[in-house]
């Protein structure tokens, strides 16, 4: 019996350069050997050795791989996307670690920071010796970050920060936090070493999603920062939203990794599992599920690659990133759930990946812009009418 995988069916390799394939293969090999054997346990116990993993991923070159200089690999958008995909094929939590480090924390410093801030943080963050987090979302301000309560007040040359942030990936293991706060004028970004007095991070327990990921609350109490902690090159929501576009781009590819792994698991299972004395895969209902999932997965990959090439050309728009994130996460979540049905009762065991991927993708559907907000972004692009408020 000969089987093919969805991306082979779509001839995806033909759309990639040799370098892109080589780097994808390297991340895949690392994932298969070093991450996959442990991930169900990390998820089950909700314990991720994130700092050790950061060092290993840094050694590989994954962290900030799409940034130029400062010890970063300087690779293209598609290469970065493929790395996200291979990591998320293991677990969305691992891709989240990389997204937050590279596309949010490092990108903010790289894009908006001073030369001193870049020299101080980026090489160590690229190597995985320093971990970063990104504080934008607050308890009552998710989709509307402009309403944030966290405030930074001038005091002589210093800034004094008060407030809190919620749902912060890597928060309680981070060495540095990029924190967005309102000031007398506009929203500004600050580079906050986490050992600064007045900084507290509390890990959020009792999650049913992204359990192989560190999620935290950050609290700032009269946290005093020197004037040099300000990210000088941006003011207003444009700053954090620019970072989010970077991270969302990674998710367009990444989510497909979770879908690919779910589908592959379901296909393997359906071939070996016998029901009424013949393989589950030989039933037409099963084949329909598999074919429908493969078509969505392959289509999603074509979309991701198209957007990747636009990003490499420098012409991609936020609207286009919304289209990609909306479609690919939504479809990936459907694929993970449908794959679980093929596994029957075994599908609820952590021994198989689909239910873990499905649980993770519930978060991915919501974070970095909810599917609802991305829907409204697309709606506004097509009608010219904003339906947010």
């Amino acid at each position: 019996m000969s089987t093919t995988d969805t991306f082979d069916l779509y001839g995806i390799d033909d759309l990639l350069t040799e370098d892109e394939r080589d780097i994808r293969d390297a991340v895949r090999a690392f994932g298969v050997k070093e991450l996959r054997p442990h991930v169900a346990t990390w998820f089950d116990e909700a314990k991720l050795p994130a700092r050790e993993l950061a060092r290993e991923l840094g050694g590989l070159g994954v962290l900030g791989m799409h940034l130029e200089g400062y010890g970063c690999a300087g690779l293209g958008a598609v290469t970065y996307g493929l790395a996200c995909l291979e990591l998320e094929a293991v677990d969305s939590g691992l891709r989240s670690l990389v997204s937050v480090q590279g596309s949010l924390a490092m990108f903010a410093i790289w894009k908006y920071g001073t030369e001193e801030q870049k020299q101080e943080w980026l090489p160590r963050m690229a190597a995985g010796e320093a971990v970063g987090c990104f504080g934008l979302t607050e308890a009552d301000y998710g989709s509307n970050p402009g309403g944030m309560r966290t405030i930074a007040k001038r005091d002589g040359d210093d800034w004094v920060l008060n407030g809190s942030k919620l749902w912060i990936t890597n928060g309680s293991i981070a060495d540095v936090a990029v924190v967005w706060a309102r000031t007398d004028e506009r929203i500004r970004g600050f580079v906050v070493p986490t050992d600064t007095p007045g900084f507290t991070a509390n890990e959020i327990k009792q999650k049913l999603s992204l359990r192989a990921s560190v999620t935290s609350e950050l609290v700032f109490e009269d946290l005093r920062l020197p004037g040099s902690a300000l990210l000088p090159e941006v003011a207003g929501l444009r700053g954090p939203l620019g970072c989010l576009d970077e991270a969302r781009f990674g998710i367009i590819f990444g989510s497909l990794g979770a879908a690919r792994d779910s589908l592959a698991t379901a296909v393997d299972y359906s071939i070996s599992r016998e029901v009424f004395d013949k393989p589950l895969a030989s039933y037409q209902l099963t084949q329909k599920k598999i074919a429908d999932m493969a078509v969505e997965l392959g289509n999603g990959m074509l979309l991701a690659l198209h957007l990747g090439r636009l990003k490499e050309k420098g012409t991609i728009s936020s609207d286009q990133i919304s289209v990609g994130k909306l479609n690919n996460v939504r479809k990936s979540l459907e694929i993970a759930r449908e794959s679980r049905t093929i596994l029957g009762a075994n599908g609820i065991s952590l021994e198989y990946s689909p239910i873990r991927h499905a649980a993770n993708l519930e978060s991915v559907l919501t974070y970095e812009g909810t599917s609802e907000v991305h829907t409204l972004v697309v709606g506004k692009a097509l009608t010219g009418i904003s339906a947010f408020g």
Partner: protein
Amino acid sequence: MNIVVCVKYVPDAQADRTFSVDNTTDRAGVDGLLSELDEYAVEEALKIAEANDGEVTILTIGPDRAADALKKALQMGAHRAVHVNDAAIHGSDAIATSLVLAKAIQKLDPQPDLVLTGMASTDGTMGVVPTMLAERLGLPAVTYASELTVADGKVSVRRDGDLASQTIEATLPALVSVTDQINEPRYPSFKGIMAAKKKPVDTWTLADLGVDAELVGLTAAWTTVESFSARPPRQKGQIVTDEGDGGSKLAVFLGEHKFL
């Protein structure tokens, strides 16, 4: 310090491996890779080179696709590679393989201080090429190294046996084969992957090496595979129902199979 690592491109053990019509290993229909046991030799060479400001050359014999094995080793950090690629080599046995490797190593400039190999290939799994090669090169051979140090023109090797561990010393130049216990091979970094493309790879034929094609290949092989058959599928296990005597039934089973 110049180090040569001999590596082999082998069919991926995860894939459906098979034989060609001439009863040689099918290398065309199956995806291949750098033999995992050779990765340990590459890693050890890189560690020694990094500590001694050395250069690592990777040497392989094989068809066009064997270049992938060289690429992996170059991505890991090796400096240059030599690919002996000649259709006449197809089907060569260990004796001919060692001849071609020896001639290729003798052609290198500068000559190596140390030749490293894996303990065996993961396809043929004979493990005889290292000693044959050392014999042809006139080098001391130390096999199955699980620890290796280079100092003062000597190599010191720990060999772990079932009952004892030996420490063996040899003067350089020498040949050492290493086990999978010696280190943890690195993953190629992105920088290594990008750098590998710019590294020199020489391709040599038998004529370049001055090796008579009559001495290699399937017809010159001292042994031939007469036939092969797939291993029969595993039989279904025997289910023993415990009716209060499960322990003794288990003991009988283990006794019958000489596990006790």
